[in-house]
């Protein structure tokens, strides 16, 4: 069975957005520096900050919701990879007194590149958002767009009916 074609809300244009909306959208991406602000090298802090920021801005305009949602979900894989690195490093420290294996070195280097790429894309998207522009990440951009801009049919509450007990 073919899925009925989806309808989407129109995209807001830069001149229709207020400075407050643009700033709020930009803030979502900058949550990737939250761990730096707190001074703890725990990658989960960035994700928690992104989640808190998304939920505090959830009732804001679609433009803000799109950017904060995209910033939040795009942090998930990197946070997971960073958390693995922290756990691995702790294991090396506890079990082998800092005998660093080549596998760990390779993983850490790959992760450093991934973090750098994420920071670069984060800054680009923060600048775009501050100018009132849309910016779509690979995979996550589509997901965020679907989540925020899809027009959903209104759920009409059904009148409650009393039923006899189930046997």
């Amino acid at each position, binding site marked *: 069975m073919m899925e009925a074609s989806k309808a989407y809300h129109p995209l807001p244009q830069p001149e229709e957005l207020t*400075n407050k909306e643009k*700033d709020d959208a930009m*803030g979502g991406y900058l949550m990737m*520096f*939250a761990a730096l*602000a707190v001074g703890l090298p725990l990658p989960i802090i960035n994700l928690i*900050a992104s989640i808190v920021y998304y939920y505090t801005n959830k009732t804001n305009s679609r433009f803000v919701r799109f950017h904060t949602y995209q910033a939040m979900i795009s942090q998930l894989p990197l946070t997971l990879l960073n958390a693995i690195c922290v756990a691995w490093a702790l294991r090396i420290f506890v079990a082998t007194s800092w005998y660093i294996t080549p596998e760990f070195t390779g993983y850490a280097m790959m992760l450093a590149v991934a973090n750098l790429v994420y920071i670069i894309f984060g800054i680009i998207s923060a600048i775009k958002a501050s100018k009132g522009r849309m910016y779509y990440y690979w995979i996550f951009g589509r997901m965020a767009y679907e989540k925020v801009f899809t027009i959903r049919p209104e759920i009409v509450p059904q009148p409650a009916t009393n039923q006899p007990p189930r046997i």
Partner: protein
Amino acid sequence: MFIMLFCNLWATILAFISWWIILFTGRYPQTFFDYQVKMLRWSIRLNARIYNLVDGYPAFMPSGSDDLTQLEVTYPESLSRGTLLLRAFFGWLYILIPHGFILYFRTLWGLVLNFVAWWAILFTGRYPESMHVFQVETLRWGTRVSLYSKNMTDNYPPFNGREYGRE
């Protein structure tokens, strides 16, 4: 105080991110600014109760309101980036040393007065007016220093706690 700790942690993250936003755009994001003002209001209404300056129990959360204490801060449309950098690198020299030094001794004296006032309230039911004024001015002075050091205004705080227009 426990809830305030987490809210202050969030305020620290927002302040850190705001610093970078001001550096690049020259503007404090309004949502972040409003949150910081609410946190200051919460801190003032809590301190006012701790010092017995007003009766009643302070409302919880940044969104709480209070009829007995008030703080109005004008949102700055633009902030100086030069002042921002000056504060970051030399703030300790021209904010912390002069204001911090005086406020430290003022707070110590405030604690002594608070002890004396506690007995005065117990026996007379009134807070001695001159002591009350002193405590309020200390709070006001500290709040102005906070506003300046948190980059929420470019106006250097005066060396007194009197109301603007009554200096």
